[in-house]
């Protein structure tokens, strides 16, 4: 077992037990900050670390612990890659119904810690709806668990919820039990380009009472539409704003919904309307999921507004030259700033109208990625509500020595103890 005293910067535990001993030793001894990582796809999320510490990789905790397929649950270690997990589930024609980008790298633990989601969250929800049991190790090296392996369970506090989206600040997730869904037999997407955003807004209002039951309602401004069509390798009309609607089910159910959507959208006069089927639809789902990934843009944000405000917000961002994809049915708008925003001051002035918008709309804007030296000049998590004080209390209860990702949520704060 590696000793804390050894000059290591990365630690790869091979069992949860070993991890516990190591964490306890660190907490009792050197108290170096610990930074858990999975696939390292979201390390820019949150405030950067103030002090060097130890990167704790869950890469070697990647076993399938128990997969009773007929119960439609699976228990796996947190370091499993999302692609590997999907492959295991596919053999039983099942899936975890959450879209995770960079699935060849991203781990389940990382997806849970960052509360990753994608287009299908409109119809299928997010990780909080699927994580039914969790095991973790706290900063003092104590293993703890919550929930269980059955789909319905209200014994004890639901710490699964606390850990989903906790950015590795409350505990190192070592294992999770997931509720599964049958994989759909077929899926398709309707890609409709419109002359004006106002037509998309009206179409979205209509779809709220559609006779179909879409799984995804994506809004793409031309920059995003072009990039997504290219990523999917599809020749799709992308010079106008696009509404992209995903459906799943039995093949005849999917076809019926495509026909129905085509006729429901007709009254809003789409300029072009293409149904993307079969293998092409898989490529398009993939591209829609991947677009939110941070690449070399200086700054990526996620705004949460009410679904009815999503189009207006997207228009506002578009006018500022920001590339926009929205999970419109959920009011989630993802924006990538162009590389013209080269300084913090430039980013500030660019984002100011959007911050004003979310304030007026009682929404919130979160920065998913920016250069580390900008982080303390931007409200990464928006205006902090009184609930943050409660969150600080929760953090200090579970991590009294403030060792786990000490700054990530709350920025630079004096370390206790």
């Amino acid at each position, binding site marked *: 077992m590696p000793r804390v005293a050894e000059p290591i910067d990365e630690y790869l535990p091979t069992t949860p037990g070993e991890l516990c001993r190591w964490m306890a030793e660190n907490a009792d001894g050197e108290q170096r900050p610990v930074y858990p990582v999975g696939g390292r796809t979201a390390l820019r999320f949150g405030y950067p670390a103030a002090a060097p510490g130890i990167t704790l990789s869950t890469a070697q905790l990647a076993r399938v612990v128990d997969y009773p397929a007929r*119960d439609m649950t699976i228990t796996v270690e947190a370091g499993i890659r999302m692609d590997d997990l999907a492959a295991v589930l596919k053999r039983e024609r099942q899936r975890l119904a959450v879209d995770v980008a960079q699935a060849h790298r991203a781990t389940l633990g990382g997806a849970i810690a960052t509360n990753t989601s994608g287009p299908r969250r409109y119809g299928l929800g997010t990780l909080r709806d699927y994580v039914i049991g969790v095991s973790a190790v706290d900063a003092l090296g104590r293993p703890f668990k*919550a929930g*269980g392996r059955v789909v319905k369970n209200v014994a004890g506090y639901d710490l699964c*919820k606390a850990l989903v989206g906790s950015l590795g600040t*409350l505990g190192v997730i070592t294992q999770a039990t997931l509720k599964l869904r049958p994989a759909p037999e077929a899926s398709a997407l309707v890609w409709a380009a419109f002359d004006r955003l106002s037509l998309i807004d009206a179409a979205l209002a209509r779809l709220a009472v559609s006779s179909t039951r879409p799984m995804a309602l994506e809004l793409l401004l031309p920059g995003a539409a072009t990039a997504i069509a290219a990523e999917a390798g599809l020749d799709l009309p992308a010079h106008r704003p696009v509404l992209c609607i995903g459906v799943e089910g039995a093949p005849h159910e999917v076809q019926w919904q495509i026909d129905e959507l085509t006729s429901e959208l007709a009254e809003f006069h789409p300029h072009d309307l293409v149904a993307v089927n079969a293998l092409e639809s898989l490529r398009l789902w993939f591209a829609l999921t991947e677009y939110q990934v941070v690449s070399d843009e200086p700054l990526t944000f996620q705004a949460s507004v009410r679904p009815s405000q999503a189009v207006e917000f997207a228009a506002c961002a578009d006018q500022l030259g920001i590339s926009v994809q929205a999970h419109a049915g959920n009011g989630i708008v993802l924006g990538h700033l162009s590389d013209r925003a080269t300084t913090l001051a430039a980013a500030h002035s660019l984002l100011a109208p959007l911050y004003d918008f979310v304030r007026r709309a009682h929404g919130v804007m979160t920065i998913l990625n920016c250069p580390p030296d900008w982080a303390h000049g931007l409200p990464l998590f928006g205006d902090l509500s009184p609930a943050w004080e*409660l969150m600080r209390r929760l953090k200090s209860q579970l991590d009294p020595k403030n060792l786990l990702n000490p700054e990530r949520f709350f920025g630079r704060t004096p370390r206790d103890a």
Partner: protein
Amino acid sequence: MTTTDHDVSRSAAGVGAAFLTRLESIFGEHGLIRQPEELLVYECDGYVIEKNVPDVVVFPESTEQVVKVVNLCAEFQVPFVPRGAGTSLAGGCLPVGGGVMISLTRMKRILEVNLRDRYAVVEPGVVNLHLTQHLKGTGYHYAPDPSSQGACTIGGNFATNSGGPHTLKYGVTVNHVLGAEVVLPDGSVVQLGGAVEDTPGYDLTGLFVGSEGTFGVCTRVTVRLTRDPAACRTLLAVFNSVREATQSISQIIGAGIVPAALEMMDQGIIEAVEAAFHFGFPLDAAAVLLIEVDGLEVAVDDEARQIIAICQAGGAREVRQANSPRERQLLWKCRKQAFGAIGRLSPSYCTQDGVVPRTKLPEIQEFITAVGQRHAIRIVNVFHAGDGNIHPILLFDERDSDQVRRVLEASEEILLKCIELGGSVTGEHGIGVEKISLMHRLFDAHDLDVMRSVRQAFNPGGLCSPMKMLPTAGACGMEHVMQKRPGRRAAL
């Protein structure tokens, strides 16, 4: 209302005259009750084995009033417990140690309904069914549908993370709560989550749901609204043996079908329900499955056909389909009011709430039958089979202390077996006071320590719903209470 000497002495432990005077200045005479005969109604919830009267019950009509009573309790160090309709089945709103009960039934306004954005904001005292009735005709509904939905409140559902038959497909309460306004035990009002998704920071909303009133008082809930299904098919499959029925359940789930609901009723329940509602259930059947599939009109018939084939292959002697909305409604009425019909079978009953992996249903049902025989206790079953959430109902006469003892022993054996099979001791009713003694069977010392730390963040003084959910040094479960207060067991 005046304070008599008798009341003062009775309340001497925690609630004194000065406290009551202050409380009366907040609530007036119509917002508060404290006469012993009036308080009796509040001595227990649906878990009747343990009872205790609060010193006083208050009926706030606003968040401000909740803040005032919570602040007053903090000042005088008086425990308080929030309460909805009192339909919970594990003693979650039992006022352990007396103190103030905060009844939220007068905060019952539906504050906002926004269909385009799929949410509603309600006060905690809104009755579950009233929200769904309010939404009728809009194409949307509130999905969690506990069997007590005609009485239970959204605030109570929030506190206990309630389930219901249709949670199989649609999820439990927490999957439908977007946010809440809560009053913490220090009197602060905090908005958790809200109408927009993914509010940053920890998911305190999700953590608060199911905390059984031990974190604070919920005064406003933002719930997700769900589209009504376009179509549904409701089936009744009749079996000559329980084993065939439970195996068919595993087959349906294993085939990758997610019905909207999948419920089982055994012969004992069928008999009571038939006597009450005259649906036409076959009285000689060992078990029936009530199965509903919903979705698009183009899809539901296929799913129904698949299910019929699985049930027939599994030994069903007959599979009927509800032919009209009226027939469907009657079937669901029979299921949801089955508990009410049990009065025909026995003077008292105790409903258990275990969960097993769905493939273990045949095993647990056989175990339950054996336990009933061994303890000479009649057990009937009506439960959420698709989730593996069993509800064995133990029939007894509470005037017979030996029967009570046997019921408690049999209950514990069943729940321990659920744990052994990889399940849980409660799927939807909660821990309350009833199952505190089983928590250490599910969780080890570290788990419980962490849960205590979490409670500490919300409720550091412990005044809010003391002695619930987590085993605490110096307190025990129901065995202790049974010995200490045998006279507190009462009729149903």
